[in-house]
C-alpha cells in the first residue's frame, strides 16, 4: 500500500479514537443511568456544563486534570437536579431531561460569554504507553493517546464487569427492570437511581470537559454541537451494554474524523452535507437499532422512564 495513504489513515483513525472518547463517556454514563430506570435526555446540557467548568478550572489552576474533575463535579451536581425531580418528585423524565439541556446551554453561554475564544495554554498532553505504542498500526492509533482515552478503555471493562458479573450490577439491573421486585429484595431503589444518575452526569461532564481540556482547548458557546444527543441515540445502538457503547462511540468518532479530514482535504463535497453526516448516520442507526432491539427482545430496561412509588400498585 501507499505509505502516504497509510499515514493519513492512521492519523484519521487516531483522531477517530479521540472523537470517539468524547462520545464514549456520556454514552457509558447514560447506559448505566438508563439501566437503573432513569431516562436522562439532558446529556447535551451536562456535557456543556462539563466542558465549560472544565475549561474554567483548567484556566484558573493551570492544570487540565483539575479542570476535568471540576467539570465532572459540576455536571454531577446538575444531574442531581434531574435525579431529585425524576426520582423523588416523580416528574416527567423526558421533559426534565429537555429542561436540563436548555439549562446547560443557557448557563454556559451566560457564564462563558467573557471566555469566548480564550485559549487554554496547558491542555492535556498525549502520553504514549511504552511497549504497546510500538506495535505497528494499532500502537499509534490506540496507545499513543492521552490518559483520558486510556481511562475510557478501563471504564468500559470495569463497568461491563460491574454490570454483568457483580452483585452491584444485578441490583442495578433489577431496579431498572422491576423496581418493585428489587425493593422487595431489599435493594434501595431510590438510592440506586440517585447514584447512577449522578454518576452518569459526572461521566457526561467528563466527555464535555475532555473537549475543552484536550481536543479543542478553547471555549465557544455550544461547543458540544449536538454530541450529547448523538450519545443518547448511541445508548440504543449499544443496547445498554458498555462494550457496545465503546464500539458505537468509536464508530461515530470515525465518521466525525473522516468528515473533518475530508473538509480539511478540500474535497468537492459540500461542507453542509459533510457536517450533516453524523446526524444522518445517527438517524439511520437509531432506526436500525430499534428494529434489532424489537426483534431480539434485548436491551431496553423495562421500567425505563417510569418513576417508582412503593405504595402504588
Amino acid at each position, binding site marked *: 500500500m501507499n505509505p502516504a495513504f497509510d499515514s493519513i489513515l492512521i492519523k484519521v483513525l487516531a483522531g477517530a479514537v479521540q472523537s470517539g472518547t468524547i462520545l464514549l463517556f456520556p454514552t457509558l454514563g447514560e447506559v448505566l443511568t438508563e439501566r437503573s430506570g432513569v431516562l436522562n435526555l439532558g446529556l447535551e446540557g451536562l456535557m456543556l456544563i462539563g466542558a465549560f467548568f472544565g475549561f474554567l478550572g483548567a484556566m484558573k489552576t493551570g492544570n487540565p486534570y483539575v479542570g476535568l474533575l471540576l467539570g465532572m463535579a459540576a455536571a454531577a451536581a446538575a444531574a442531581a437536579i434531574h435525579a431529585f425531580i425524576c426520582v423523588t418528585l416523580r416528574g416527567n423524565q423526558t421533559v426534565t431531561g429537555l429542561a436540563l439541556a436548555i*439549562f446547560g446551554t443557557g448557563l454556559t453561554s451566560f457564564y462563558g460569554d467573557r471566555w469566548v475564544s480564550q485559549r487554554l495554554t496547558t491542555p492535556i498532553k498525549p502520553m504514549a504507553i511504552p511497549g504497546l505504542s510500538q506495535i505497528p498500526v494499532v500502537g499509534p492509533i490506540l496507545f499513543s493517546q492521552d490518559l483520558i482515552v486510556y481511562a475510557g478503555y478501563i471504564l468500559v471493562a470495569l463497568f461491563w464487569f460491574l454490570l454483568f458479573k457483580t452483585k452491584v450490577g444485578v441490583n442495578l439491573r433489577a431496579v431498572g427492570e422491576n423496581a418493585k421486585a428489587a425493593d422487595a429484595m431489599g435493594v434501595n431503589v431510590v438510592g440506586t437511581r440517585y447514584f447512577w444518575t449522578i454518576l452518569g452526569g459526572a461521566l457526561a461532564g467528563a466527555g464535555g470537559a475532555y473537549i475543552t481540556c484536550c481536543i479543542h482547548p478553547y471555549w465557544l458557546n455550544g461547543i458540544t454541537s449536538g454530541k450529547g444527543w448523538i450519545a443518547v*441515540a448511541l445508548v440504543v445502538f449499544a443496547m445498554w451494554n458498555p462494550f457496545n457503547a465503546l464500539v458505537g462511540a468509536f464508530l461515530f468518532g470515525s465518521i466525525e474524523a473522516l468528515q473533518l479530514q475530508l473538509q480539511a482535504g478540500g474535497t468537492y463535497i*459540500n461542507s*453542509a452535507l459533510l457536517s450533516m453526516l453524523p446526524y444522518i448516520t*445517527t438517524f439511520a442507526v437509531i432506526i436500525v437499532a430499534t428494529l434489532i432491539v424489537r426483534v431480539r427482545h434485548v436491551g431496553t430496561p423495562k421500567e425505563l422512564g417510569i418513576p417508582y412509588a412503593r405504595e402504588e400498585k
Partner: protein
Amino acid sequence: MLRFEKRDKTPVRLRVLVPICSVLLGLLAGSVVMLFARVNPVRVYGAIVKGAFGSAYTFSETLVIAVPLILISVGLCLVYRMKFFNIGAKGQYIMGAICGSYLALFGPATMSRPVLLTLMLVLGTLGGALWAIIPALLKVYWNVNEVIATLLLNYIASYILWFFMYGTWGTRGFPLSKNFALNAQLPRILPAPSRLHIGLFFGLAAAVIVWIIIRKTRFGYETRVLGDNERAARYAGINVFKTVIIAAVISGGLAGLAGIAHTSAVLRILQLEINSDYGYTAIIAAWLAGLDPLVAVGVSVLLAALEAGGYQIQIVMRVPFGIVGVIESSILFCLLAGEIITHYRVTLTRRLSTPPRSTPRIGKKCSGALDERARGAHESCL
C-alpha cells in the same frame, strides 16, 4: 410519613398556583445565577420589563416573537397530550421557512400577491408537516423513540438550510437570500417601525381551533384517552396510528407555518439565523400552559416578553442572552417538580401498621418514638 395518592382531577387552585410559583421561582433562580456573575438582577429584570412592555413599539416587538411561539405551542399542546414528545419544532419551523421561501425566491414573478402568499403559507405548512410525519411514522410502525428522532431532524434541517444558503440560494457568496419581493411579504398590521403581522390572527385562530378539537371533537377525546393509557385506547377501538399521525401533522404544520410567516413578514429574507430556537421556547410555553391551547396564548406572550427583554439587556447592558435559557429552564424544572402536588394528593399520616422493632432500646433518644407507637397502637385499637 408522607403518603401519595394519585389524583383523578387536579383542583383548579393548584393548576393556577403551581405555574405562578414556578415562574417566580424561575426568576429567583435566574437572580442567583446573575449574582454569581456580579450582575444586579433587579436592574436586569427592570430592563427586561422595560424592553418588553416599555412602549407601544417594544410591546409590538414582544408580540412579533409571541406569534411563532403561539403557533408552535398550540400544536404541541395537542401532541403532548397523547405523550408524543415532538421536540422537533425547530426543524419543522426551518423546513416550513425553506419550503415557503422557495416560492418567494424562485416562484413566477407574475403571480398576484394573495395567490403567492397563500401558496407560500401552504407550502410552508406542508414542509413542517412533512418533517413531523417522518418521526410519527417511525414511532407508530417501528416504535422508534420520537424524542431522539425529532431532535436529530432538527440538526438535519439546520444543515439543509445551511446547504441552500451557502449554495444556490445565497447571494455573492454570503449566506443571505435576495430580499423577498413585495408580493412575497406577508402584510404587517401596524404602521412602521412595528413588524407585527397578520400571523397573529393565524395564531389566535389556531389556538381556538385546537381548543375546540381537544374539547369538543371525537378526535380530541381520542388523543386524551391515548395519552392516559395506550392499551385502553386500543381496546376502545381507537386507531392509534391515525391519531398519532394526524396530531403530529397538525403540530408540525403549525410549526412550519410559524417558520414561513416569520420569515416572510418579519425578516423578509432567508438567512441562516431565522430564530428557529423558538421551537424550544414553545415547548416550555406548552408545558407552562398545562397543555391548554388558550392558556398557551397568554404564556407565549409572557415568554416572548422574556425573550424580547433578553435581546434588549444583551444590547444595552451587555448581559449575555443565555440568562433567558437559565430562567426558562428553571421555570420548567419547578413546574415538573410541582407535578408531585398536581398529580398526587400528598398527606402527612402516621404509620399505623408499624412492624415491631426488634428489642427497642430504652433511653431518652427512643422514648419519643415509643410514645408515638404506643399512641398509634392505641388509635388502631379504637
